[in-house]
């Protein structure tokens, strides 16, 4: 049992999160204070859960992409498109909310599938293939909203990003359900194994009869779907679509969350729970720095240093340096 815990991939991310929380508890007065107001909890911890949601959603899709040895840079741009389409549809009379969300998400799946097509069928490097949509996608979103910030009003839609469910922000439930669905899709079927296999060695996977192309198509389309959901959550939270800023730099946070959560950039084995923990770590860092009354800009520097530390801890070269002295290692 102890060995299982010690060798678990989740050990370091969870320890890091706990350490961060303890540090916060020591230095930020009232960090763990949670108060109940009109059937809803309030406090720093709740804020972290709430604000980590978009990155957590992105990270779930990104985990699968990274597990196949790829990366998806376009998620931020897809979020902007998602928000823009959502705002356009909601401002049209006669379009129901469910239909609007379904149409938006379908578009985002199509955008993701386009990435998948470039990577899987045309064999373009993932960084380059998704770079195209990253550059052009934000332009498309700006085109849709004509560079304006589109605002709209719909109390039912506001519930997604701002409502509460069981005392917690609704997005927490959303992320939990989406994590469960993603886990079921990958772990209860052979899909997860196919993804890991494609990431480990695409050639031998093909010889083993795995349709690597389809697997890659699936993960990029899925990442598009996750980005679409994150875009809907953000648009719903602020009741507006800001194509210039929505989702800007989110792709980087999502990648960081996945790597911090223990999935290697080189592909292969992945951990969905780890990525969620990673998203929480990043948000806790940001929130705790803000709570220290230091300028928000420090968050960027601290994030950079923390990320580097994690990358180094995971790198073989770094670990070998310290193991060299030990016998038999």
């Amino acid at each position, binding site marked *: 049992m102890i060995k299982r815990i010690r060798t678990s991939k989740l050990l370091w991310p969870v320890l890091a999160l706990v350490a961060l929380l303890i540090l916060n508890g020591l230095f930020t007065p009232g960090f763990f204070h949670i108060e109940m107001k009109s059937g809803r909890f309030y406090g720093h911890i709740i804020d972290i859960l709430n604000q980590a949601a978009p990155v957590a959603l992105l990270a779930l899709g990104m985990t699968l992409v990274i597990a196949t040895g790829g*990366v998806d840079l376009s998620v931020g741009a897809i979020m902007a498109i998602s928000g823009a389409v959502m705002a356009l549809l909601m401002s049209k009379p006669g379009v129901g909310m469910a239909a609007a969300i379904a149409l938006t998400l379908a578009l985002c799946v199509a955008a993701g599938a386009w990435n998948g097509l470039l990577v899987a069928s*045309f*064999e*373009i*490097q993932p*960084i*380059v*293939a998704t*770079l*195209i*949509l*990253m*550059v*052009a*996608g*934000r*332009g*498309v979103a*700006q*085109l849709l909203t*004509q*560079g304006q910030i589109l605002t709209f009003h719909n109390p039912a839609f506001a519930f997604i990003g701002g409502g509460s469910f069981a005392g917690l922000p609704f997005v927490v439930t959303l992320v939990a359900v989406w994590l469960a669905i993603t886990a079921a899709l990958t772990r209860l079927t052979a899909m997860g194994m196919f993804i890991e296999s494609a990431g480990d060695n*695409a*050639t031998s996977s*093909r010889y083993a009869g795995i349709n690597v192309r389809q697997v890659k198509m699936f993960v990029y389309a899925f990442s598009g779907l996750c980005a679409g959901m994150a875009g809907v959550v953000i648009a719903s939270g602020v009741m507006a679509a800001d194509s210039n800023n929505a989702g800007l730099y989110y792709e*980087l946070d999502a*990648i*960081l969350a996945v*790597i911090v959560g223990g999935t290697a*950039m*080189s592909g292969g084995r992945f951990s969905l729970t780890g990525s969620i923990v990673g998203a929480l770590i990043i948000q806790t860092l940001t929130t705790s720095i803000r709570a220290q009354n230091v*300028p928000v*800009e*420090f*968050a*960027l*520097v*601290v*994030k*950079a*240093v923390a*990320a*580097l530390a994690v*990358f*180094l801890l995971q*790198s*073989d*070269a*770094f670990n070998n340096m310290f193991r060299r002295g030990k016998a038999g290692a």
Partner: protein
Amino acid sequence: MISKKHIPLAATMAVFLLLYAGASIAFDGFFSWGVFSNLLNDNAFLGLAAIGMTFVILSGGIDLSVGSMIGFTSILIATLIRKNGVHPLLAIAAALAIGSALGASMGCLIAWFKLPPFLATLAGMFFARGLGLIISMESIPIEHGFIRSLGDFGLRVFPVTTIIFLAAIVAAVYIAHFTRFGRGVYAVGGNEDSATLMGLSTSGIKIGVYTLSGFCSALAGAVYTLYTSSGNATAGTTLELDAIAAAVIGGTLLSGGVGTIFGTVIGVLILGTIQTMVTFEGSLSSWWTRIAIGGLLLLFIFLQRFIQRKAQGGKSSRQ
């Protein structure tokens, strides 16, 4: 006539000439010395960053930190001049040194600890942007006799910023094609294992490449500061994308080993021409620039893909 190696470069040149000719026909006053001179000057800082990026990509890596580095060095130079009364030349020298040092640190992480370049420079990107914003959130205008005399000097033929850009192009072409280091960069990008077996110091070359890119983006920051006469910590946001796009459109393969500095410069000019065309048109909005760049990227990536497949003699290129 043209060897297969030069088809992407020829295509890039053709696109640039077609774009420029088309714009000259479509818009009155486009075909003029003023517009061309502005094209060079407005894109000098992007060009400098793209040159550094080209070396990195040639070696098989990527540098996401160039945009943030421009913001950081720009605000650093402005602050040193304005608040600390440092002479502009000294401030720029300090910025170049710090930029190179930051680049070298990323290079060490990549070469010694085998961190993926994507991740190491991603951390560098956050780090540099954060440092810049810590120095000052507001943009700082600079006013200094030396900078004014630089401006007066520049009125004769080219602004100083353009001269720096042109000098950097010459220097970069020399380094890439006529020095041992340049050949080493191509060798490492072509096949790192064979480069090592040939006895090349791959770590040294990698560290050198990121140091060079750090230097180039710091120089780009200095040029940006001279160009706008102010320092701004948010300068160069998402500029790394444009720099990568310029390199790819210029015929550099992102897998490394193939590409030219000259191609990248043409790539930068193509991006600049699109921008100028959108400005001339007037009714087109700025987002069309992004969409056009995305479309061009796609076109050139397909072209490269096509040539690569042909080069492999119709064999399946899948690995």
